[in-house]
């Protein structure tokens, strides 16, 4: 089986990250924003794994596990915020929480 070039993998990670970022910026629904963040985290994780595979070092996979843990914590906090948002404003639209009049 021919080895997949590193560039392709990194390109996939960049595309994933960009898609996640676009989701965060474009969607108003807070649940989708959380999903976008998850995608960005996973894109970063993919880049670590690719690096680890390229140089045959375990560090990449170690860091991916760390990212998984961080993502789990992030989701728990994020979902709690979603519930609070829904409870307080009756909607899951982040722009509903726009109360600062800078």
């Amino acid at each position, binding site marked *: 089986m021919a080895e997949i070039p590193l560039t392709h993998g990194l390109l996939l990670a960049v595309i994933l990250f960009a898609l996640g970022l676009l989701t965060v*910026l474009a969607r108003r629904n807070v649940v989708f*924003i959380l999903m976008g963040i998850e995608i960005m985290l996973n894109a970063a994780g993919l880049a670590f794994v690719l690096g680890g595979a390229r140089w045959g070092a375990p560090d990449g996979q170690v860091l991916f596990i760390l990212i998984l843990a961080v993502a789990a914590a992030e989701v728990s906090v994020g979902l709690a915020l979603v519930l609070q948002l829904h409870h307080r404003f009756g909607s899951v639209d*982040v*722009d509903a*929480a*726009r*109360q*600062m*009049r*800078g």
Partner: protein
Amino acid sequence: MIYDALWLVPLLPLIGFVCLTLLGGWLSRRAMAVLGVGSVALATALAFTIGYTFLTRPPATGHCTEVIGSWLAVGNLHVRFGLYLDALALVMMLVVTGVGLLIHLYSATFMAADSGYRRYFAYLNLFVASMLMLVLADNLLLLYLGWEMVGLCSYLLIGHDYADPVNGRAARKAFVVTRIGDAALLVGLLLLLAHWGTLQIQPLLGLAAQGWANGSALATVAAALLLTGAVGKSAQLPLQVWLPDAMAGPTPVSALIHAATMVTAGVYLIARLHTLFELAPAVQHAVAALGALTLLLASCSALLQRDIKRILAYSTISQIGYMFLALGVGAYAAALFHLMTHACFKAVLFLSAGVVINALDEEHDIYHMGGLGRQLPGTSLAFLTGAASLAALPLVSAGFYSKGLILAQTWNAPGMGVWLWTGGILGTLLTAIYIFRAFFVAFLGRPKSHARCGATAAEAVALVVLAALSVTAGFVEIPAGLGGGVQAFTGLVASALPPGPQPAHTGNLPALLELIASLTAVAGVLTAYYFFRYRPPAATAAGAHPITAAVGRLWQSGWGFDWAYERLFVRPLVMFTRANRHDAVDALFTGIAAGSRALHRGLSRTQTGRVRWYAAGIACGSFILIALMVLP
């Protein structure tokens, strides 16, 4: 020796000032008056004792010097508290203390109802002390100190009733206008100091007479600067505008400061430094021309004033014009003689006007007076004596002798003497008209108001003494045209001042000049009688024509000097200060503050609360940072 006590003469009024200022709270009004008048009375007694000694046993050199102590000693500059008494200083000292004492006495009852009684006497004492220091100083710095202090006292006393903003404005005007002259005087003194390295008057004059050629540029500049100072203080053209407004002060103050003493400081200065002025013939001619012009312009203005004090103010300007005229032609003794008689008759005019104003409840307008001769006979007689002396009525008035001396010596002056003499004669005519206009309108005719009270005893004493002096002070100098013989005054001051211009040829000319001057004065009185007593409608008709009415308005406003100065100097300056109210240099610092405030406002705009915008910001920032790290 009595001369050793000379320093007490200025010190006694100064002690009076200090006591009145420090102890004032514990003094009764009576004690204030005793202290205020008493200190000047002691100084006067001492001054006259010194004067008597000077006359009977004059000092060998014609002058005496007394040094009290050192004032400044910086490098080569040594200034001392030194007094210098010669005939010139003696005459000034006697005038200041004598007239000063009578006016203090008058004030004791005249100001009795005033709430600022203590302040008034304190400043009046300070004024007498400063004026004495001015005339007795043996160096120019001490003279300048006295010069500034009399200006300060003038300011304080014009604004005595400070509750009325008009008085405060008049006081500021007087202070600022005289300050223009004072600044020039200071520059002149510094020029002399820089060039000759001393401010001692007599050594300085000696050095200047030897070192400066006649008409040299530096001498001319120095004399011109000193003349500017004298012009400011003595209210001559073009700085005369402050004196009519200075009448806002209490009447005795007008009599003492703005008629008898302070305004003649300029005359004293020029007489004291006459050597310098003789080294600058151009400036000395300017003195004479300024004097002649001032006396004519001020007489015209006095003709049309309605306020009795303003008539007298313009008359003071015009009489000092005579003194400048005399100084300009070198007739220093005549100028000093006129200064002395003027102090007497102008003081009696002001003081009797004060009694009238007081009796009529602050009525200043002569057309609202009338018939005062019957209601206030004594005061009217005093005013008449002063008026006769001012108008130089022949033989019976002091003003006749002093003005006659000035006119005779002006005629003899080389160059433009005849023209100056013509101006002086014209001035005599105008003087007689304006002062007798005031007399006929205010004191004769039908009474228009009721005089509330007459002069008190203290006021009467001052009036009687000054009125007597207005008649007799001239008898010390009988002119050559009237047989001559008596030359007591010029004989006295001959030791200090050079003789005036001498006639090229004698004969009947001196007598003829005296006759012309006498007839002019009498003609003036008769003109005033015709227009203001015999046929007042004639005066009204003469003033009704459009041209005469326009000229009259011009004269009444003092030839529009106030109008012009208001537009030329006051308003531009006020506009400039208003524009620069927020200091231009401050703009840098307020600019920094305004810039950071604008930045703050812009940045706080970004704090919208839109989470996705924050995320976008973070993303952009990260992108830029990474790009910066990767790209180079």
